[in-house]
């Protein structure tokens, strides 16, 4: 092994990578744009759509209730919905989104109410359809207000004070510091993004440096030079690793800037809406650095794995079809860590990718379980070393280098 040769190969591959548009896009542009777009762009879009759905005055139908003018009047008085006359095809109208909900008032509703004999008012909606659900909730709130008034008048008639209904109060309060609140909400996604971008950042260079080299006919040229195959594969590996880490670093950086931007926007909102303060995301620098540190052996694992797989391919296209399934293989455990209730255990700490993803969730909240950190770092290092060994072995196989 010669460090000088590895350096020569690395510098040459770096020169070529910096001149390759595909590599530059996947390594630098994607991570820089992804987070601002995701957080600010997508966030703003979702917020606008939700607001629009809430602001819409929904059309609803009241079925029956001819003998119950009181409840009809209460529903009709609401400015938050528009009551339409009932038609027989009300179900189809809900499904076709012409009306958002229907309210069925049973016959003799007010007569039963007077006799203190409770009947059920049914609200029909389109389950899973956002606007229908919001309308149903509006209707329900309206009816609950009406019910409260009925209760109030009954208490009044019996000379009982209204306070009898609330013998004591209940309140929920947060004790976790803001970074833990933010971390619990967003920690999973940060680990997931860093892991995914470590992979995608290395993907194009790995394919370009192996299958691409075969496709362009430069493999035979380089193999005829005196450099050993070990030095050659290591030089290539370090370039792929660099791309992977640069992508991860840029993604963390752009994530930081995006969240900072979001906080500035929210700070404007806080004066109007105090609840927004709880949503503030505060991630401290050490947490970000530790996430990056844990991603390091993972980046080694991905880089070596990508080289091994794409070296087997004869062409860039073939390499892409091998690498795509690998994405799913990485995304699955990374996503599994985001599922609610999945927590780090000694066993899970040995499952590659899932372990780092779970740990990132903890790190972002500022929790450092040192035994897990050591265990996960070491186990990932072992997997990474195995992958690198495999890549070196692969590079010494003639049937792989000259597959036809």
């Amino acid at each position: 092994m010669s460090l000088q040769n590895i350096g020569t190969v690395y510098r040459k591959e770096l020169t070529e990578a910096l001149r390759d548009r595909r590599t530059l896009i996947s390594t630098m542009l994607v991570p820089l744009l992804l987070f601002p777009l995701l957080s600010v762009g997508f966030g703003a879009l979702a917020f606008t759509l939700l607001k629009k759905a809430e602001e819409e005055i929904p059309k609803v139908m009241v079925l029956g209730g001819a003998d119950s003018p009181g409840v009809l009047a209460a529903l009709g008085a609401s400015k938050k919905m528009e009551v339409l006359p009932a038609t027989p095809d009300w179900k189809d109208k809900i499904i076709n989104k012409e009306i958002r909900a229907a309210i069925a008032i049973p016959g003799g509703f007010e007569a039963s109410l007077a006799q203190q004999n409770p009947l059920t008012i049914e609200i029909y909606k389109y389950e899973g359809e956002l606007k229908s659900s919001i309308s149903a909730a509006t209707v329900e709130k309206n009816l609950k207000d009406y019910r409260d008034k009925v209760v109030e008048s009954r208490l009044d008639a019996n000379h009982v004070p209204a306070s009898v209904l609330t013998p004591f109060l209940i309140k929920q309060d947060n004790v976790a510091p803001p970074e833990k609140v933010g971390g619990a909400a967003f920690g999973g996604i940060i680990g997931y993004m860093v892991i995914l971008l470590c992979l995608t950042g290395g993907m194009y260079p790995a394919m370009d440096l192996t299958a691409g080299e075969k496709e362009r006919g430069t493999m035979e040229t380089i193999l005829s030079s005196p450099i050993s195959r070990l030095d050659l594969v290591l030089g290539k590996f370090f370039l792929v690793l660099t791309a992977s880490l640069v992508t991860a670093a840029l993604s963390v950086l752009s994530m930081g800037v995006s969240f900072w931007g979001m906080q500035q926007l929210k700070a404007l909102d806080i004066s109007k809406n105090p609840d927004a303060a709880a949503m503030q995301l505060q991630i401290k620098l050490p947490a970000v650095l530790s996430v990056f540190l844990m991603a390091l052996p993972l980046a080694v694992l991905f880089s070596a794995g990508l080289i091994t797989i794409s070296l087997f391919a004869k062409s860039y296209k073939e390499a892409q079809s091998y690498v795509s399934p690998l994405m799913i293989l990485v995304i699955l455990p990374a996503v599994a860590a985001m599922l609610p209730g999945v927590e780090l255990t000694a066993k899970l700490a040995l499952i590659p990718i899932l372990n780092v993803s779970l740990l990132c969730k903890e790190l972002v909240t500022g929790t450092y379980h040192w035994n897990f950190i050591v265990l996960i770092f070491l186990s990932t290092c072992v997997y990474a070393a195995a992958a690198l060994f495999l890549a070196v072995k692969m590079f010494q196989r003639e049937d792989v280098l000259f597959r036809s």
Partner: protein
Amino acid sequence: MIETRGLTKVFKDKKRGEIRAVDGVSFTCAPGQIYGLLGANGAGKTTTLRMLATILEPSDGTATVCGHDVVEAPQKVRANVGFLSTATALYPRLTSQEMVEYFGRLNGIPEPELKKRVDEIFTRLDMNSFRDRRCDKLSTGMKQKTSIARTLIHDPQVMIFDEPTLGLDIMTARTILEFIRECRQRGKTVIFSTHVMSEVEKLCDVIGIIQSGKLLAEGSLAGLREKYQEQDLEEIFVKVVAPHYKPEEAA
């Protein structure tokens, strides 16, 4: 100097089983001589030359290049070999000069000397007008010159050319053939493979005819003419190869 003794390469193919691409080939190429390996497609020329360049490892037999064994000391062999074929392409995103410098560094040439040599070779091959142009923007002729410069940068004693003129136009092919001749004049050991009879007739001091991985005939052009009682090399080639030719082997 190149010496092979019983050089053999066996490939394992899932469908066709064991393929003896090169089967017990023995020959010697001396310095200041051009050895021409003549054969049809799939005869075993490329595999033989790849083994000499240590890109492939022999399954059996031995080969030494400049006294170094291809299995024992492959890196030393490669340091003494310039390998050029139509398959040895250039890095598209490097400039002509960067390409040549890269191979100089891989050959361990120290920087000041490398600069001197690059300047010398670029001037000699009349390449200064395109030294800073990227290889993917070069014409075929410029690419060939860059490839030649790449094989010369470490001043190797042995030159291996694998069908170097395949697919080239006449003018570019002539540049290559002139370069091969020049290598002989400089006292290098040259081996080159081709299936073009006229190239062999013009250039080679020794001709080896290879088919189905076996070296079937060897000698100077005059020697082969006398042995097979034919003047035309193509007729000699057909006489030698026909009894062994299996069309399905042609790759």
